[in-house]
C-alpha cells in the first residue's frame, strides 16, 4: 500500500515540476526531445572502460538541474531504482574482467547520467506537450491517444487499488501482502470494474463526437531560444564524443 501511494506521489511530483516556468520549460518540446536523444546516443556509445570520457557529460545535468529548478535529490532517488540490475551485471562482471571495477564504475555513471537525462526531460516538459509533438511527427493517433489515456487512468486506478488494499489489510490476517489464494478475486474484481469503467469512458467520448478526423495541431513556432538550446546540447554532446576532453585538459597541466 505504501508502495502504491508512493507511486502516485511520484507521478504527482513530476507533474508539478513539469508545470514550472523556468527558461528550460519554455524550450520547444521538439528541441528537448531531440536534445535528450542525441545526448543519450553520444553518451551511451562510449566504451565499456571509458570512465574518464564520461565526465564531460556531467555538465548537462549539472547545468540543467538548477536551470530548470529540478531538485537533485529526486533524480538521485529515482536513479537508485534503475541501479540494481546494472549493479548485478557490473558486480558479477568484476569476476570475469581484470578491469571489472573500472567497468562497474562506468556502468554506475552511465546509469546515473541516462536516468537523469530522461527524468530531466519529463520534469521540464508536460506529457501533453510531448504527445502533441509526437502527433506532429505523425506517430499514429491510436498510439498517442493510448499513451495519454493510459497515463490519465493510472492515477485513478492506483488510488482505487490502494483503498482496496487498505480494506483487505483491515480485515486480513496481519500478514504483509495479499495471499495468493485471494488474488484471483481481488485483482480480478479490480479488473472487471476497470473494464466497466472503460465502457463508460467510451460512451462519454462518443457523446463528444469521437471518433472524428485526426487533427494535427499547429506547432508552436521554433524560436531562436530553441535553436540555441538544440545547438548547445547536441553540439556539446557530439563534441565530447569526438574529442577526449579530459585527456586534453589533463595534458595541458
Amino acid at each position, binding site marked *: 500500500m505504501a508502495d502504491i501511494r508512493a507511486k502516485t506521489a511520484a507521478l504527482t511530483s513530476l507533474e508539478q515540476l513539469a508545470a514550472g516556468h523556468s527558461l528550460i520549460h519554455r524550450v520547444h518540446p521538439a528541441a528537448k526531445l531531440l536534445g535528450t536523444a542525441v545526448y543519450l546516443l553520444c553518451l551511451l556509445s562510449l566504451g565499456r572502460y571509458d570512465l574518464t570520457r564520461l565526465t564531460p557529460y556531467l555538465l548537462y545535468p549539472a547545468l540543467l538541474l538548477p536551470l530548470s529548478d529540478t531538485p537533485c535529490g529526486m533524480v538521485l532517488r529515482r536513479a537508485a531504482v534503475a541501479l540494481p540490475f546494472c549493479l548485478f551485471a557490473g558486480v558479477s562482471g568484476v569476476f570475469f574482467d581484470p578491469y571489472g571495477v573500472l567497468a562497474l564504475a562506468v556502468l554506475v555513471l552511465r546509469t546515473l547520467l541516462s536516468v537523469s537525462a530522461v527524468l530531466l526531460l519529463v520534469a521540464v516538459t508536460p506529457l501533453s506537450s510531448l504527445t502533441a509533438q509526437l502527433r506532429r511527427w505523425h506517430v499514429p493517433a491510436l498510439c498517442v491517444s493510448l499513451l495519454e489515456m493510459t497515463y490519465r487512468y493510472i492515477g485513478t486506478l492506483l488510488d482505487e487499488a490502494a483503498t482496496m488494499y487498505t480494506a483487505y489489510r483491515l480485515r486480513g490476517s496481519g500478514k504483509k501482502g495479499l495471499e495468493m489464494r485471494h488474488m484471483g478475486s481481488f485483482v480480478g474484481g479490480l479488473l472487471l470494474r476497470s473494464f466497466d469503467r472503460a465502457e463508460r469512458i467510451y460512451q462519454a467520448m462518443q457523446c463528444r*463526437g469521437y471518433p472524428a478526423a485526426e487533427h494535427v495541431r499547429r506547432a508552436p513556432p521554433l524560436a531562436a531560444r530553441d535553436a540555441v538550446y538544440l545547438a548547445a546540447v547536441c553540439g556539446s554532446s557530439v563534441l565530447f564524443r569526438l574529442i577526449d576532453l579530459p585527456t586534453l585538459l589533463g595534458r595541458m597541466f
Partner: protein
Amino acid sequence: MLTMQNLTVTYPDGTVAVDGLDLTVADGERVALIGANGAGKTSLLLALVGVLPHTGTVTVDGVTLDKHTLGEIRARVGVVFQNPDDQLFMPTIGEDVAFGPRNHGLPEDQVARRVTDALAQLGIGHLRERTALKLSGGEKRMAALATVLAMAPAALLLDEPTAFLDPRARRTLIRALAPLVPARLVATHDLPFAVDTCPRCVLLREGRVFADGASRTLLYDEALMEACGVEAIGILESGGK
C-alpha cells in the same frame, strides 16, 4: 425541443430499461427525472444521444435521431455522466474541454474561444492547465460540465449531478447552473436539488412515466412517491422515523 415517442430501450440481455415512454421537453425547460435505482433514468439519457439503441422516435429540434443525424444531434445535446472520472480522459482540463469542439471540426481559434468561455461560465478558468487527477470531487464535476458546455448544446442531460459533492460544492453547482440557457433533463436522487432547480418533474417507474407535473407538488406527495419506489421530501426532512 426534445420529443420522445413510444421510446423503448432494451439491453442485449433482454432487460427492458425504458418501456414505451412519451415525453416532451420544451426549449429552455428544466425537468427533473426521479425514480428508484434501476428505474431507467440513465438508460433514457443514454438513448437520447444514441449511445444505447432504441425503438420509437426521438426528435431534437425537429431532427429525428437515426444513424445519419447522430453526429448532428450529439452536437446539440450534451450529457454529463454520473461519475466525472469517466468523463475526463485528456491530460489537462483545457484539452478535455477542447476535445468535443475539436471533434466537431471547429477551427483552432474557435475551439480556444469555446474553452475559455465554458471555463469562465463555471468559474473554473484557473483549472485549465491542471490535470483531472488532482482535482477535488466538486472541481471534477464542474470540469465535466464545462466539457459539455463547450459544445454549446441546446439541451443538457445531467445524470446525478450532485453525487460526491459536499454541501458547499453542491451550492456552487446550483449557482453555476442557474443562468445557463439550454433545456435540461436532470436524473437525480437529490430531491431538494430537484425542487430547487427544476420547476417540472417526471417520476419514472420501471421504465415508464408514472407521473409528470410540478416538482413542488409531486415531490411532496407521499403516496405517489412511495408508489414509485422513492420517498417524498417531507419524510426525508422530518427524519422519517
